[in-house]
């Protein structure tokens, strides 16, 4: 009896062990098989085909296989010796899994980098990206044609280029504006607001005359500095980074909290908050609230250019609506603060970075290539409606989004997109633009890493409440300043100033 039991247990363990082993053998076989199919192209006779693996956040769209096949067919037809493979990672776990893949040396070639999450400099500091300067010189002629000269400086770190910017939107004056319901302004005889008093008046008129249940509110996109508001200030243009660092056009770096401009902004918002124009629970609003509130129509204005989607869908949400995006001071010159927010980089685990660069170069060679990668297969997932226009049979369909890998020169807009949208985001502005002096400056935080991290964490804790008017400037300023100083902001500012001076050649 006991022998039988012992045998059974041993057998179970053995079987389990064998099962695990055999699957690992299968795995290795598959990997080996793959490797013989796509060997390293560092050998001079590059007749072999290299698969470029693009890892990106998101989920595969319907018909993903067909779409990728179409890209690969064209790659083969163009005799590029390249093939594309896309690996999707759900957005929730993008950071975790991409970090894991990099940490374990898992081979892949391309990945998107988003400056508002972990930026290029953060990855470079950890050796996560491959330098691609020389490959761009050799194989990136088309990339260089579509990405303007001045953008490359921001992609340069430690003397080499580490990423390929996605120049999908003009960044001059693209977000220092607000979106309003023009039909309501007209209805109540309001002119376009120009000063903070105009805005307060506008809010008052909206609230008093509002029909229907509920009341309209201001929808602040407070995760970014209120650049739209800065236009009303005399000292504009100036640049504010992460609501922490202020840089004026003379190259002076200051603690944003300590500037008079911050005070002005905070006092204005305090008035908005006290009057109830900004919702009481603004910091606690669930994810998606801003969109929901906007689609319900109950808003006074929304920060930024929010003309996303088609005019038809907005008409369905808010019958009779006339959305418009305006600047509080159109007389001021257009201002460009950042070079780019999204880019595609080559991973440091890539075995063929030059193939990755070649692929992106192929992408930006022609409208046809771009269409295949960004919009999919014509007739299946999108319909050509002329230069720069398209429609989608499935309104929810998205392949490789513009903002990740797109470029102004090739972007198409869905039929029914607001013309203003195209004017603001999609039109290159070459004249009448003032660049921030820090436009191409990349801050290296290594020496003040802890202070920088702690200061940035403090922004959310201490600055946001004052910024939004939840806590008045008088009440909150001293405490916030104390906390920032304890976090080490002065050291950060000093280091920033020193580096900026060096950059500007002072």
């Amino acid at each position, binding site marked *: 009896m006991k022998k039988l039991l012992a045998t059974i247990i041993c057998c179970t363990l053995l079987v389990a062990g064998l099962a695990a082993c055999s699957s690992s053998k299968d795995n290795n076989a598959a990997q080996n098989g793959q490797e013989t199919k796509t060997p390293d192209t560092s050998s001079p006779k590059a007749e072999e085909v290299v698969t470029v693996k693009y890892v990106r956040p998101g989920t595969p769209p319907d018909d993903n296989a067909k779409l990728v096949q179409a890209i690969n067919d064209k790659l083969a037809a163009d005799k590029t010796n390249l093939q594309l493979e896309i690996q999707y990672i759900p957005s929730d776990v993008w950071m975790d899994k991409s970090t894991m893949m990099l940490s374990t040396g898992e081979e892949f070639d391309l990945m998107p980098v988003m400056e508002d999450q972990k930026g290029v400099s953060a990855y470079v500091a950890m050796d996560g990206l491959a330098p691609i300067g020389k490959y761009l010189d050799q194989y990136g002629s088309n990339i260089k044609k579509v990405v303007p000269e001045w953008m490359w400086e921001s992609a340069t770190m430690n003397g080499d280029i580490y990423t390929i910017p996605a120049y999908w939107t003009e960044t001059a004056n693209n977000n220092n504006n607000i979106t309003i319901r023009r039909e309501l302004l007209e209805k109540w005889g309001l002119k376009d607001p120009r000063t903070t008093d105009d805005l307060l008046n506008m809010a008052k008129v909206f609230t008093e005359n509002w029909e229907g249940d509920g009341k309209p509110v201001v929808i602040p996109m407070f995760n970014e500095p209120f650049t739209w508001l800065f236009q009303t200030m005399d000292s504009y243009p100036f640049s504010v980074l992460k609501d922490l660092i202020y840089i004026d056009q003379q190259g002076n770096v200051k603690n944003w909290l300590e500037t008079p401009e911050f005070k002005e902004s905070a006092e204005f918002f305090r008035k908005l908050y006290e009057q109830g124009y900004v919702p009481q*629970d603004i*910091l*606690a609003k669930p994810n998606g609230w801003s969109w929901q509130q906007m689609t319900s129509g109950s808003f006074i204005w929304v920060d930024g250019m929010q003309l996303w989607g088609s005019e038809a869908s907005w008409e369905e949400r808010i019958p009779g609506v006339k959305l418009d995006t305006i600047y509080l001071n159109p007389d001021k010159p257009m201002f460009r603060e950042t070079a780019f927010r999204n880019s595609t980089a080559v991973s440091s685990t890539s075995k063929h970075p030059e193939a990755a660069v070649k692929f992106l170069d192929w992408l930006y060679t022609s409208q046809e290539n771009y269409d295949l990668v960004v919009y999919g297969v014509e007739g299946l997932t999108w319909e050509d409606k002329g230069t720069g226009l398209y429609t989608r049979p499935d309104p929810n369909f998205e392949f490789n989004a513009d903002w990740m890998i797109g470029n102004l020169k090739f972007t198409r807009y869905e039929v029914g997109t607001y013309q203003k949208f195209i004017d603001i985001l999609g039109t290159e502005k070459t004249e009448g633009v003032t660049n921030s002096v820090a436009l191409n400056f990349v801050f290296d935080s290594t020496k003040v890493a*802890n202070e920088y*991290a*702690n200061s940035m964490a403090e922004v959310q*804790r201490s600055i*946001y*409440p004052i910024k939004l008017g939840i806590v008045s400037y008088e009440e909150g300023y001293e405490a916030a300043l104390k906390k920032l100083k304890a*976090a080490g902001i002065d050291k950060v500012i000093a280091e920033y100033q020193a580096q900026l001076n060096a950059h500007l050649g002072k």
Partner: protein
Amino acid sequence: MKNKLVFLADVRTNFFSYLLALPAILFTLIFGYCTIPYMIIAFQKYNFRKGLLGSEFVGFKNFEFFFKSNDIVQVIVNTIKLNFLFIGFTTLLALVISVLLNELSQNWMRKFFQSSFLFPYFMSWVVISYMLYSLLSYDHGLINNVLEWAGLKPLSFYTESKYWTAILVMMKMWKDFGLNVIIYLAVITGFDTEIYEAARIDGANRWQVCTRITTPLLMTTVSILTIIAIGKIFYGDFGMIYALVGDNGVLYETTDVIDTFMFRTLRTVGNPSQAMAVGLFQAIMGFILVCGTNYIVKKRFREGALF
């Protein structure tokens, strides 16, 4: 050497028991112990390329952002305080409910209620945060609607940190007590019925049975669960707090815990080594506390000790 011999002798005497434990031992070795060496990155300068063996050793540098931060005391205090309250109140509620349930007859109603206690456990914190918001929001929240209807002033829950210790504790209790009730009920089923019979013969009433018999008998289980929970007392419930509090800085005073603090600070400029440094700190502190608590419990209440 002697210990090894004693150990081997034990294995030989109880060969089959060790054999039975073998799969679990192997599993723990592979998926538990084999990952622990990686904690060394807490002392290295993180570099994707150089990996574990090639990265530079930087001593305690990765710990600096945490220990030199302004908020460290508040964050640690919050973590321990909240976890302590969580353990205490959840256990209390689960105890009360299981003891009560045990006294009720085994009909379909009881089965229904028992099942319902498990529902909150399955809701994700994100979904719960939406529910909570619709309850507590200033403008249209249920509670404030009721207050206004009663002619009272509305409360601004999301801009006052003072309410949140209580809110978090209540939410945690609500979510987790069901699971504990299942455990306690299973354990109660295993109790010797003779004691209960003897008690009823002696004329004990419901209350006495509950407090003098059922509850003390459950103490071993309570003790073990509590000690295990103490091991995690330095780990804040990130999923819960980030979903419910999010980026609402006004509430951080009472709700910010080590894990949310770390997440926020390292979000854009941090690296995994710094995260591991804090993790190592949390693990060591928790372990020390467990050993200490276990030692104390062992002296007075042998069965309730973990090891």
